[in-house]
């Protein structure tokens, strides 16, 4: 009924820009009849000028005795509205639009939560009407008095100012009311925001505030709704921005920035295809015979092609030593990987590497060509090609950098051992023999994985440990040689779209981009190049794929591409530094630079910021209310014993959830033996199941903290906790997004809505479901499904669960073996933070 009358009024204000508090006209244009504009002052002239802006809602309830608060919440607002309307419309002019109470109720019909504030506000206004003034007097002729009712310009401003101000007006408007309360108050923290008060232009006219309290407050309480509207907008903008990244203005063509590698103008003379195949056959045969890496054969062969050959032996105790762990060790494509040679959790192996010394240069720089070998017979063609390339490179005299040909055992474990020994560090507790031969600083590395004599395409992997990426120039180099050699090259296993102008190209690019985001977010080293990146060695992995396509390339084509790349890398004079280090790839020849993708996560984090600001304002004003001088006559309120949101109420949930996180981080690995003794599970299963058990146990947290926390201020308690949690989450996500955009973005996408919505009122079941669905573990499960979906290999539910368990074990394992940070980040950072929101949701 009366919502109709509110609608046109806002439009009216939209049409009249001078209504922003500049003129005194138009006070009747809101839901109120115009007659009250003049009636107000005479009716309530005794009101203190220090009365708050009616929009400053939350402060008001502080002045009631604390005992009355729950009652107020429960009270039916309609009756109060009636009273408000009746007292306000003393001149009898309110009848123009029907009953004033109805007017108020209708205009305030914005949301259940705000209604009770309106009620409180009205009570406050009534109680304050008799108070002596505290603030500066507002004379009858003061400009503020003649202004239109609060609500009207409020709405007008919201309509007029659009995005930039609409969301922020609510809190700031309330903030502006704060310092005006009287001379007794010291400066509040919000005075830091002093210039922003310009955005809160309508300093309260108390008389009008009283007069219009019913509908005005109702309208004012609509502002937080605008806030959430803005939050929704910001969230949608973040997602939309991310989706828009694949379209040409945002995605750019890659280009070679490094002068020294400017063109593909080198002559590839590699012709050792037969030799490579022979080497590969011999290698496979020897490995089958010995069952492990044929070290002696490799040494002999490398020496025969003219390299300086060294070996390195290493051993590593895995955190959960059981053969069942292999069940959970993921291979590269998400299928359980090859069995490792484990005896009691110890992995030991030998790396073999040969150095080709640059004939006319000092051994100050080097390049690495590495082949990681598992324990089965894959990758023998890569070893063959490596040896054939070494033989060919040995015949050239133009090398200015040493070239290291490295064959590692146990895939990445061997690579990690070799890298640690080469750089003389020990970051993961690897035991290894020191390296006998060195070749200067490694400038770039290429890892090669080939399992067949012919390939149909080459897939390139760039994502490294913790989402690190090599310099984009290295990828550009690979891309140019792909084009030169006419090779079919893929990224994330996806063919490259040719046409970026139509919709198909970008859509295909979006799949590739999402796959890259998922892989980067996982923080796994996707190939042995991923471990090089930690040492600031630009590296990528090339995988030969042999599918059912008709046209196949032999080893010569792959070898020529590698030769060209190495020859160009040999021309390098400095480390690769000219091009981007932080980028996303929707295709091999397209990239999105950091400046263009960061706004996506910025928008998402803005939601948290807005929510936190809103909560802060509410809390702040609540605190202000408490500081009201007790000496003032009238219904002064006995001060609560503390601020109510004292440290004690926050420390307990924070500590408990952090402790849960710590338990999640430490206990699974620590308690695996206990678990295996008491339950019929193997260690790896024990770890995973303990992980899940502790994770689920965290959900029982609210009931625990409830007993710990004193319940003196239930409402502000959860607000303060949520504020802290929001800031905590925003800080964490911000830091993560800066170092690993993909992880930060994925987490922000999932966690932000639930975090922003969580509160102990309203549809709690819905919130709880949402929160559980967006918890880190559920996120991981969802990512796995999405990943396989994008790879066009969809998972069934059971497979998905198996993969999920495998991924959990893999995450813990890679944290311990390579130092991947995803597990500690989730368990020590995001899980406790998420628990805080869970706590907020079940606050009592």
């Amino acid at each position, binding site marked *: 009924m009366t919502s109709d009358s509110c609608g046109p009024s806002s439009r009216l204000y939209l049409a009249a820009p001078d209504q922003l508090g500049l003129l005194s006209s138009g006070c009747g244009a809101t839901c109120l009849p115009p007659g009250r504009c003049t009636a107000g002052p005479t009716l309530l002239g005794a009101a203190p000028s220090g009365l708050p802006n009616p929009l400053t809602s939350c402060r008001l309830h502080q002045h009631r005795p604390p005992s009355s608060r729950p009652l107020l919440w429960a009270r039916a607002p309609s009756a109060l509205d009636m009273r408000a309307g009746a007292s306000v419309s003393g001149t009898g002019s309110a009848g123009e639009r029907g009953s004033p109470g109805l007017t108020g109720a209708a205009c305030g019909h914005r949301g259940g939560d705000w209604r009770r504030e309106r009620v409180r506000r009205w009570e406050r206004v009534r109680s304050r009407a008799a108070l002596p003034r505290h603030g500066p007097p507002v004379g009858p002729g003061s400009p503020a008095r003649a202004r239109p009712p609060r609500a009207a310009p409020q709405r007008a401003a919201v309509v007029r100012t659009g995005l930039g101000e609409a969301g922020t007006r609510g809190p700031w408007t309330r903030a502006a009311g704060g310092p*005006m309360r009287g001379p007794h108050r010291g400066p509040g923290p919000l005075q830091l925001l002093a210039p922003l008060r310009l955005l809160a232009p309508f300093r309260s006219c108390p008389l009008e505030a009283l007069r219009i309290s019913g509908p005005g407050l109702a309208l004012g309480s609509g502002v937080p709704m605008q806030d959430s509207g803005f939050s929704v907008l910001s969230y949608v903008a973040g997602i939309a921005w991310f989706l828009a990244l694949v379209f040409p203005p945002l995605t750019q063509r890659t280009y070679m920035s490094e002068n020294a590698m400017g063109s593909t103008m080198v002559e590839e003379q590699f012709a050792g295809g037969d030799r490579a195949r022979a080497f590969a056959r011999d290698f496979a045969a020897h490995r089958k015979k010995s069952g492990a890496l044929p070290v002696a054969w490799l040494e002999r062969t490398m020496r025969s092609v003219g390299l300086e050959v060294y070996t390195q032996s290493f051993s590593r105790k895995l955190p959960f030593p059981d053969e069942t762990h292999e069940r959970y060790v993921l291979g590269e494509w998400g299928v359980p990987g090859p069995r490792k040679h484990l005896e009691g959790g110890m992995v030991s192996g030998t790396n073999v590497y040969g150095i080709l010394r640059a004939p006319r240069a000092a051994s100050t720089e080097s390049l690495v060509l590495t082949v990681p070998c598992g324990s089965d017979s894959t990758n023998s063609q890569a070893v063959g090609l490596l040896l054939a390339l070494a033989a060919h490179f040995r015949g050239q005299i133009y090398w*200015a950098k040493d070239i290291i040909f490295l064959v590692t055992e146990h895939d990445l474990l061997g690579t990690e051992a070799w890298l640690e020994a080469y750089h003389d560090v020990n970051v993961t507790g690897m035991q290894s023999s020191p390296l006998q031969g060195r070749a200067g600083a490694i400038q770039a590395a290429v890892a090669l994985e080939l399992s067949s004599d012919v390939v149909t395409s080459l897939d390139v992997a760039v994502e490294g440990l913790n989402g690190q990426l090599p310099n984009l120039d290295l990828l550009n180099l690979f891309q140019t040689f792909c084009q030169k050699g006419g090779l079919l090259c893929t990224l994330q296993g996806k063919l490259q779209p040719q046409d970026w102008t139509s919709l198909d190209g970008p859509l295909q690019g979006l799949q590739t981009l999402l796959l890259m985001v998922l892989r980067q977010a996982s923080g796994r080293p996707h190939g042995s190049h991923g471990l090089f990146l930690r040492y600031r060695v630009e590296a990528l992995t090339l995988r030969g794929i042999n599918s059912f396509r008709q046209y196949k390339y032999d080893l010569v084509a792959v070898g020529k591409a590698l030769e060209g790349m190495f020859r160009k890398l040999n021309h390098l004079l400095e480390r690769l530094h000219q091009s981007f280090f932080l980028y996303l790839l929707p295709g091999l020849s397209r990239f999105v630079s950091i400046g263009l993708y960061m706004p996506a996560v910025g928008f998402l984090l803005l939601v948290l910021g807005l929510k936190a600001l809103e909560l802060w304002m509410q809390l702040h004003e609540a605190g202000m209310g408490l500081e009201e001088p007790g000496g003032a006559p009238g219904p002064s309120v006995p001060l609560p014993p503390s601020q109510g949101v004292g440290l004690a109420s926050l420390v307990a949930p924070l500590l408990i959830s952090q402790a849960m996180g710590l338990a999640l981080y430490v206990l699974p690995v620590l308690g695996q033996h206990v678990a295996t003794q008491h339950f019929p599970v193997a260690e790896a299963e024990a770890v995973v199941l303990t992980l899940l058990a502790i994770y689920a146990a965290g959900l029982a947290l609210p009931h625990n903290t409830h007993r710990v926390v004193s319940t003196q201020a239930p409402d502000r308690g959860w607000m303060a906790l949520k504020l802290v949690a929001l800031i905590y989450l925003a800080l964490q996500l911000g830091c993560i997004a800066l170092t690993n955009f993909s992880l930060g973005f994925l987490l922000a996408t999932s966690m932000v809505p639930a975090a922003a919505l969580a509160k102990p009122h309203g549809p709690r079941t819905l919130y709880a479901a949402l929160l559980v669905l967006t918890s880190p573990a559920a996120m991981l499960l969802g990512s796995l499904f999405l990943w396989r979906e994008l790879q066009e290999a969809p998972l069934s539910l059971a497979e998905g669960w198996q993969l999920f368990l495998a991924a959990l074990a893999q995450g813990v394992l890679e944290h311990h073996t390579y130092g991947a940070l995803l597990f500690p980040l989730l368990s020590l950072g995001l899980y406790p933070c998420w628990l805080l929101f869970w706590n907020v949701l079940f606050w009592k």
Partner: protein
Amino acid sequence: MAVTDSLSRAASTLAAVLLLSFGSVAASHIEDQAEQFFRSGHTNNWAVLVCTSRFWFNYRHVANTLSVYRSVKRLGIPDSHIVLMLADDMACNPRNPKPATVFSHKNMELNVYGDDVEVDYRSYEVTVENFLRVLTGRIPPSTPRSKRLLSDDRSNILIYMTGHGGNGFLKFQDSEEITNIELADAFEQMWQKRRYNELLFIIDTCQGASMYERFYSPNIMALASSQVGEDSLSHQPDPAIGVHLMDRYTFYVLEFLEEINPASQTNMNDLFQVCPKSLCVSTPGHRTDLFQRDPKNVLITDFFGSVRKVEITTETIKLQQDSEIMESSYKEDQMDEELMEPLKYAEQLPVAQIIHQKPKLKDWHPPGGFILGLWALIIMVFFKTYGIKHMKFIF
């Protein structure tokens, strides 16, 4: 039979004596020949050849410089009169698949490194400071003669530079650059110190024309490989060596110079047309307004060679006074009258005009009063709206 007249006393140069010893009967075409003989007033030739860039991928710049070195040396300027500055040693770079060579043509057709290269300033000695010191002669006393430009006011100097440049500068060594104004001032200093008779400046770099547009000293002819706003492009990609071997402009200059021999009568106008846009892609530029002779009378060998002129004649030639020779040559070149006045240093040319030949366009900026007024209006509206008493709530 020899008739000596009063003119013989005026003739002081050996060439003049030689000429004068042959008879007094001077036909008019002989007079012309004699004028031709004296048309360039130089007695010695110098060359300063500079490559300013390091690194293997700048192989072509070293090849550029070495190819000019090869030409001037072949045409007669000895190593003692060549100051060769090479910022990097490509012949011995470990990346060079053909050690001890620098090729200017693909398929190893022309090795410009040769057997006998005397590099005077090498690698990190090639700096802007050293270059300017060489030009202006402000060199520490300990500097060996091979590193000095010991020219005088009868010297024709060829200055060739190549490297990476931009609008108004040329980069040296990745760490510093020389601007066109510094270069112009150095040439002026050379002129004032009578360190050259005529100077030919050639630069092969991107936006090369910007380097000579600020010159204001007389007797300078300048050539550049590209106009302002243009890139100079490379030529001769060689997959075996793995880099571009030369830049286009110098490549065609070298092809042109290979055809020159000490007796060639090819003049500067031919050099100007050596690399049309169809070949160079960029547009080569030249500047002759500071030069006092017509380019068509300037032989290539006046700068690129050290050609001693010997003409054998049986005729007797009456030589005019020095001043008359000058006068006649100026008339021939249709020079302005004011240039007939004895040359004064620094004022002889409209320096100010040359320096300010292209006034820079200033970016439009709203007048200060307008901005002030805008602020005043904002503040006025604010106070009108809220009143002064609200100030304390703002601050």
